C-alpha cells in the first residue's frame, strides 16, 4: 500500500519535502515563537506590542497603503498595456515580451540603485529638471512615500502584465465582433462584457501584486532604511538589530504580515468566485 502510494506520487515528493522544510516548518516555528517571551514562556504580549506601539502600527499602515496603491496603479497600467498588445505586429510583440521578461526580473537592489541614479537627490533627471526649471520634477522626493510608490509601481507593472496576459487570451475576438455588430463601441464592449469576463484575472493579479509589494524588502530598505517604517523592514530589524535581537516580536510581525496577505487573498478569491462565469 505504502509502496504503491510512493510509486504513484514519487515525482511530487521532492516538492512536498521542500515545502515542508522551507514553508511549513518556518511558519510553524514563527507561530510558536510569536506566542513566547524572552524566557520562552507563553504570552500575548508580542501581539499587544504590534497592535499598540505606534512604530509598528505606522509600519502596518504604510505597508498597506504602499501595497494597495502600487498594486492598484500597477494593475491599471498593466491592464491598459495588455489591451494594446494585440495592436502590435507579431515581431514587435516578440520584442515587447522579451523586454517584459527582462524588466520583471529587474527588482530589488539594482532597481533601487537605478532609481537613485535617475530620481535621487543628485539624480540625472532631477538635476536636469532643476536646470530647465521643471519644478514639479525637481522637487520630487525619492526617499519618501510618494518616491516609494513610484518605485513599487515600476516593478509591479511588468509582473502585472505577465499575470494578465493569459486572461486576455480568454477574451474572445468573436465577443468583440458580436458587440460591434450590435452597435457597441470598444469602450461599451469592455464595460459590459470584457471587464466582467476579465475580472477574475484582474482580481487574481491584484492579490499577487499586493503580496509582492507587501513583502518587498531590498528596494525599500535601500531607499528609506528606517526613515519610513515598513512592515518587512521592521521584521528584519528584529533579527539583525544592532543592540538586541527580538525574534519573538519579529515572529509576531511576520505572522501579522502573513495574515494580512491571507486576508487579501481570501477576499480576492471570494470576489473571483462571485464574478467567475462559466464559458460556453
Amino acid at each position: 500500500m505504502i509502496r504503491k502510494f510512493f510509486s504513484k506520487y514519487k515525482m511530487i515528493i521532492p516538492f512536498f519535502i521542500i515545502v515542508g522544510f522551507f514553508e511549513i516548518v518556518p511558519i510553524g516555528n514563527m507561530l510558536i515563537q510569536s506566542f513566547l517571551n524572552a524566557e520562552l514562556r507563553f504570552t500575548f504580549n508580542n501581539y499587544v506590542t504590534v497592535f499598540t506601539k505606534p512604530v509598528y502600527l505606522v509600519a502596518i499602515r504604510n505597508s498597506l497603503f504602499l501595497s494597495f496603491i502600487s498594486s492598484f496603479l500597477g494593475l491599471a497600467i498593466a491592464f491598459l498595456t495588455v489591451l494594446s498588445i494585440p495592436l502590435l505586429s507579431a515581431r514587435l510583440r516578440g520584442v515587447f515580451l522579451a523586454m517584459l521578461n527582462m524588466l520583471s526580473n529587474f527588482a530589488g537592489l539594482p532597481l533601487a540603485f537605478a532609481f537613485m541614479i535617475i530620481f535621487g537627490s543628485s539624480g540625472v533627471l532631477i538635476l536636469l529638471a532643476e536646470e530647465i526649471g521643471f519644478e514639479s520634477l525637481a522637487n520630487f522626493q525619492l526617499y519618501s512615500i510618494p518616491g516609494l510608490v513610484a518605485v513599487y509601481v515600476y516593478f509591479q507593472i511588468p509582473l502585472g502584465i505577465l499575470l494578465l496576459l493569459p486572461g486576455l487570451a480568454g477574451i474572445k475576438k468573436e465577443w468583440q465582433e458580436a458587440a460591434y455588430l450590435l452597435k457597441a463601441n470598444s469602450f461599451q464592449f469592455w464595460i459590459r462584457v470584457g471587464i466582467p469576463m476579465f475580472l477574475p484575472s484582474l482580481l487574481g493579479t491584484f492579490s499577487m501584486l499586493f503580496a509582492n509589494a507587501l513583502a518587498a524588502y531590498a528596494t525599500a530598505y535601500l531607499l528609506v532604511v528606517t526613515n519610513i517604517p515598513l512592515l518587512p523592514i521592521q521584521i528584519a530589524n528584529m533579527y539583525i538589530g544592532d543592540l538586541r535581537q527580538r525574534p519573538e516580536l519579529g515572529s509576531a510581525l511576520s505572522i501579522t504580515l502573513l495574515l494580512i496577505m491571507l486576508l487579501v487573498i481570501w477576499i480576492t478569491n471570494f470576489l473571483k468566485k462571485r464574478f467567475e462565469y462559466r464559458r460556453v
Partner: protein
Amino acid sequence: MAFLELRGLNKIYGKNHVLQDINISIPEGKLISFLGPSGCGKSTLLRCIAGLETVSDGKIYLDNKDLTDVPIQKRDVGMVFQNYSLFPNLTVFDNIAFGLKIRKEAKEVIARDVNEMLDLVGLTHKKDRFPAFLSGGEQQRVALARALIMKPKVLLLDEPLSALDAQLRKNLQNEIRRIQRQLRITTLFVTHDQSEAMAISDIIYLFNIGKIESSGSPIEIYMSPKTEFAARFIGNYNLLTSEIFSELTGCRLEAAYLAFRPEVVKLSEPEFGDDSYFFSAAVKEVNIHGNFIRYVLLAGKAEFSMDILSDLGDPLLIGETRQFAIRKDCVLTIHES
C-alpha cells in the same frame, strides 16, 4: 440596383487572393446560401459584408447605400457566428437586450421587444439562464434572436448549424426558414453542407477557391451543374470522361465530362426503349443508407454509383453482374473542367 449588390469584390491576404472578382445581386427578402468547401472564401465574403474585414477592391451596396467603408456599427447588418459568440456574463434576456441597451432604448421598449423575440424563438422559459446552461440549439436561437432584435436590413448566418447534431440541424433549418419568411428579412447563409443549402435557400451561390462557380435556385443547381466542380460538389454526380462513357455505352458525345446522378441509373427493364443507354456492370460495393441503397458499379474503366430505394426488391449482391440503363436526357454534358 438590387437590394444588396456586391461589385467586383476582391480580398487579398498577402499572396492569397481569397476573393476574386465577386459580383452578386441579391433581391430583398430572400434567403441566399453561399455554399462551398472549407477555405473557399464564403465566410470571408460574409465578414466583408459585415465590415469585420476590409475589402481590397470593389464595392458593397445595401439598399442603395455604399457600405464599403462604413463602420461596422453603422451598417444595419446582423450576424450569427458559427460558435454563436454569446456573452457568457449576461443572461439570455440581457444577451438579446444588449443591442437595444447600447441604442439606449426605453426600458419598456426593451422588455417588450426582448419578450417578443423570446417568444419567436421559443425560449421565454429560459430568459434568466446564462449561456453556459443552454444546449447548443438553444444558444443558436439566442444568437439568432440577439441579431434579429436590431431589425437589421441583412442577416448574415455563418455556418450557424455546423456544431449541432443531425436531427437538431434539421429542426433548426426549418425554424430559421420559418422566421426568415415570417420577418421577410434578407438573409445570407454560409454553409459547406449542400443538402442544408438545398433545403433552406431561395438562391444558392456555389463557391470554389475564392470564385463563384455557379448560381441559381436549388433545383437549377442540382439538376443542371455547369462545371465539373459543381457536378462533383452537388448531388454526388457520377462524372465520366467522354472516352470512358463511350466505352461504357457505345455512344460518343462531345464533352469534357458526362455527368449523371446516382438515382438516374436503373436496373434495365424490357420496356426501356431507344431513349436510354444500356450497359452491363458488376456490383463492387453495397452501402445501406436507410431509405436508399448506394451501389458502386464497375464496368471496364468506368466506376460510378447507383441509388435505389430500399423497398424496391432484394438488394443486389457484391460481384453480381446485371444489365443497367440510364435515360439519355438524364446525362449532362460538362464542357468546362
